[in-house]
């Protein structure tokens, strides 16, 4: 499709990009991204860039300028819980609205879904996953596990080769997003130059600050219909400050888990209050005690 497309007889001289954007409703997804995801400014900026590129590309095609099918394979790097999967879901939606993937679904897999245990087991497994992802986005979490240099007979290499072939030859049919820790992804790309050269967009997901994590917690609570008591707000800020410096801190995921545990404690607390009807307020309020019982406050 590299050849300059002959301008159709009816090709317009000018193109209204804003109208094109409205027509594809891509702004709805971008605004939703802004609204529902806290922080991640560099990520949002990159996604806006990509959306703009695709939109301009469509405009170019409409006026009959040559367009090259853009390479859309991406790599999302960042620590756990920084929103890679969530953004990948939105990315699938954006690409669908702009007409770069036909169906817009996301298939999330890890090494185990692609690599088999025996000779001849890997290719059918990988192909199976690829077939399911056709027309959408294939999200490979912790992609570097596909490559195990310590075992030269590892079947991961076979999966990588099949992936590469499809990424190159069927660009119209699916978009691949690799995700994982930044340093490990870099090592992976160094040993798989073929993969590195086929990935056009590298997006780095920064860790959240304490303030952002607090907003995320508020958002999660609102979504599930809970409120924080005034003293619980203080306790939550305190909790976040302590949790951040602990090992195995996984950003938003840790916050979600903490809130789930707080809900458990709230439930037991209410359940342990016998002989008294429980009101709507009590049912939806997380008290400071529910958070302060966490073991991060023990040391």
């Amino acid at each position, binding site marked *: 499709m590299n050849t300059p497309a002959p301008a159709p007889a009816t090709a317009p001289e000018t193109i209204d990009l804003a109208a094109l954007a409205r027509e594809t409703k891509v702004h709805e997804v971008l605004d939703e991204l802004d609204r529902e995801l806290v922080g991640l400014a560099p990520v949002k900026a990159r996604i806006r860039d990509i959306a703009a590129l695709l939109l301009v590309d469509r405009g170019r095609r409409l006026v009959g300028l040559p367009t090259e099918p853009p390479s859309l394979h991406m790599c999302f790097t960042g620590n756990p819980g920084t929103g890679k999967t969530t953004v990948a879901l939105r990315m699938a939606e954006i690409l669908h609205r702009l007409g770069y993937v036909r*169906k817009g679904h996301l298939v999330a897999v890890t090494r185990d879904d692609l690599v088999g245990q025996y000779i001849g087991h890997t290719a*059918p497994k990988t192909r199976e996953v*690829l*077939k*399911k992802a*056709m*027309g959408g986005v294939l999200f490979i979490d912790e992609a570097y596990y596909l490559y195990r240099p310590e075992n030269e007979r590892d079947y991961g290499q076979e999966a990588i080769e099949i992936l590469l072939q499809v990424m190159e030859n*069927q660009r119209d049919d699916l978009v691949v997003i690799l995700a994982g820790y930044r340093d490990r992804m870099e090592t992976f790309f160094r040993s798989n130059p073929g993969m590195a050269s086929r990935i056009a967009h590298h997006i780095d997901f920064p860790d959240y600050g304490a303030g952002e994590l607090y907003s995320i917690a508020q958002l999660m609570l609102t979504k599930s219909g809970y409120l924080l008591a005034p003293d619980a707000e203080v306790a939550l800020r305190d909790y976040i400050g302590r949790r951040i410096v602990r090992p195995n801190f996984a950003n938003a995921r840790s916050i979600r888990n903490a809130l789930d545990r707080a809900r458990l404690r709230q439930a037991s607390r209410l359940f342990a209050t016998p002989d008294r009807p429980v009101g709507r307020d009590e049912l939806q309020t997380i008290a400071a005690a529910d958070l302060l019982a966490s073991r991060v406050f023990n040391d």
Partner: protein
Amino acid sequence: MRVTQGTFSFLPDFTDAEISAQIEYALQQGWALSVEHTDEPHPRNVYWEMWGMPMFDLKDAAGVLMEVNACRKTFPDHYVKVNALDATQGWESTRLSFIVNRPRHEAQYRVVRQEGAGRAIRYTVERADGGHH
């Protein structure tokens, strides 16, 4: 002689785009798809070789076309067909089945008449080009 069995077999051969459109229709109905091939398209030969497992949970025709092309590449001189299977009754039943690949030289058949006891006549459709044993 052109082998005519399955849906669309009196039409000219489908292009890949037309095959995709049919697969897309089947996917929209929620049917699973499978690819099968044989070198003996005798009307009584209902068991064609399976090209891999039937495909469930696919969203897009490109995945099926990938298998069709792989099968054609491996068996360019076989008949290849795409089946669409409907499971709404609790078992998989074929809703649609069409040929997507034919060998360069189509299989030839002839009708043989045999005199039986009591002037009974039996007819057999047998391979005429020696292509299959």
